């Protein structure tokens, strides 16, 4: 008996330290994002930080579908786009202001709910592969619509508009005695700061809501449906109703994330919201972070975003540093960054088969 006690202790222990590491990393990322404007003061960094915030929500809400419930959807960017275009069209039409954000964001959410219910009720009964195809079709139709109705959507060019006045760079949040913008730790308390914290706080709240959902009784039911749909139904859960509800919840959260993104960017177009390239990004982020973990989304998004934004720079530096060595600088040429990104992914998937958080926390890897 002592035998089993000894042999079973280490894996459980490894799971615990792994969990500690994951939570520590996620906490550190949270802190870095919370103080990003003070820690990284250039324009590019604030863009990266805001994108990370929005994509954490987007990837986490996608994890709710694919990781927790086992629903494969390709329409997540469609819902993201609905929220973004809603806000963009309203801000363009009604002029910059909070009412435009509310009306546009609200309209995006309503359309997202209607579409999610329709897609869910019509096709969540059928096989997963058909459902995935239906979402793919819906997303394609939405892209065509966005480019066809160019008088509303700006077509391929997208829409440029102004954000609410509070977010204008000239806006003064805090002033010193002379009525000039106050600087805190060398950072001007202007509209840029306000815009970043608007993004950060909205995303923080949405992410907490997602965490709440997966820790609630509903979260366990979703996992049960993923694990064994037939038994979940047999103990009294209406599987189709649960699937449809979670599809709607994920759609609403994606749509809200889209609105936040649109307000931050002051531009909305197919490339920033609807494109399949973003859909693939989200999928990779969730897979790399660890499906069915929520916190994995945080790690996946940060890794991917940093790689996408900074790998080229890093390679540029490495390439010039190795300029005297044959062949190496060619391999490290910044134009080959996608190749290296690909190699990075393959290595990650190889060493972390359940995603980084998933593998470290020993989630989904008991067998």
């Amino acid at each position: 008996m002592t035998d089993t006690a000894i042999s079973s202790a280490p894996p459980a222990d490894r799971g615990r330290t792994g969990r500690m590491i994951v939570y520590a990393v996620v906490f550190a990322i949270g802190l870095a994002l919370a103080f990003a404007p003070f820690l990284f003061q250039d324009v590019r960094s604030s863009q990266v930080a805001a994108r990370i915030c929005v994509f954490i929500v987007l990837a986490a809400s996608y994890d709710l579908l694919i990781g927790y419930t086992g629903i494969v959807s390709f329409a997540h960017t469609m819902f993201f786009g609905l929220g973004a275009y809603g806000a963009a069209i309203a801000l363009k039409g009604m002029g910059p202001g909070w009412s435009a954000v509310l009306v546009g964001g609200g309209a995006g959410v309503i359309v997202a709910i209607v579409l999610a219910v329709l897609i869910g009720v019509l096709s969540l009964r059928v096989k997963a592969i058909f459902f995935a195809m239906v979402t793919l079709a819906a997303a394609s139709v939405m892209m065509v619509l966005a480019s066809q109705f160019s008088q509303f959507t700006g077509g391929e060019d997208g829409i440029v508009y102004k954000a609410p006045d509070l977010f204008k760079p000239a806006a003064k949040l805090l002033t010193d005695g002379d009525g000039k913008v106050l600087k805190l730790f060398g950072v001007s308390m202007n509209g840029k700061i306000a815009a970043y914290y608007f993004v950060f706080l909205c995303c923080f709240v949405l992410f907490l809501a997602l965490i709440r959902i997966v820790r609630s009784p509903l979260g366990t039911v979703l996992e049960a449906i993923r694990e064994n749909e037939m038994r979940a139904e047999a103990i009294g859960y209406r599987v189709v109703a649960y699937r449809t509800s979670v599809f709607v919840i994920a759609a609403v959260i994606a749509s809200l994330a889209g609105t936040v993104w649109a307000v931050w960017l002051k531009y909305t177009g197919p490339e920033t919201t609807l494109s399949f390239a973003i859909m693939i990004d989200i999928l990779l982020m969730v897979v790399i972070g660890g499906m069915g973990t929520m916190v994995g989304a945080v790690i996946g998004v940060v890794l991917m975003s940093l790689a996408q934004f900074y790998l080229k720079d890093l390679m540029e530096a490495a390439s010039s540093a190795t300029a005297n060595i044959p062949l190496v600088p060619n391999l490290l040429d910044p134009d080959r960054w996608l190749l290296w990104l690909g190699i990075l992914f393959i290595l990650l998937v190889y060493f972390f088969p359940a995603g980084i958080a998933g593998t470290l926390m020993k989630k989904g890897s008991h067998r």
Partner: protein
Amino acid sequence: MTAPSIETRDLTIRFGGHTAVDAVSCAFQPGELTVIVGPNGAGKTTYFSLISGQLAPSEGRILKGGDDITRLSPSARAKAGIGRAFQLTNLFPKLSVLENVRLAVQAKHGIGPRLFRPASSFRTVADKAYQHLKATRLDDVAGLPAAALPHGDQRKLEVALLLAMEPDIFMFDEPTAGMSVDEAPVILELIDEIRKDTSKTVLLVEHKMDVVRALADRIIVLNNGELVADGPPEEVIAMPIVREIYLGIPADEAAA
């Protein structure tokens, strides 16, 4: 007379040309434990699947307390009080033993859709789940993923899920198959407990004759999907046809 707790009328299902359950009409009363016997492939498990709704019949009807439930979904039947433990273990493998049982308790108490509260804060649900784990002697392994349990414990968990559903109708499909000699009595005692509750109906598929003798109020025999015998245990066990198909003894020898 009150309506039987569960009744099937001419219940039939065909798979292609093969009739797995063939016009079975049978009624079960509250407070009654019926053992269903029959050789492998007789249609016992299929009969259960028809009653609990995983399969839709080709013909015939199913009534619960006089109401037609033939068209209800499996979840609706579970809510209506029909519970089933599966012959082939059918759990949520990556979830913990406690979560497995908690899910069933949660479904019964209607808090599945609750969103913004941690699952662990529903005390009564957790307490109930623990009670069922204690009853099935699984409380020591509550935190392990179901997939990590040895076979015998998985069978017990299968039963714990059924208990947690708190149904009126319990269907056990060879609950002790593959269990060790010291594990089986725990389950059999639990079934005996349920039997003593006169409001519950128990259907039990079981092969071991000593168990059948100890528990059965009534035995029905299925063969090739047909109901071939139905009656008190001593009577049915003594029938030549039962001895022939069930014990593999030719009828003339059995009579001798």
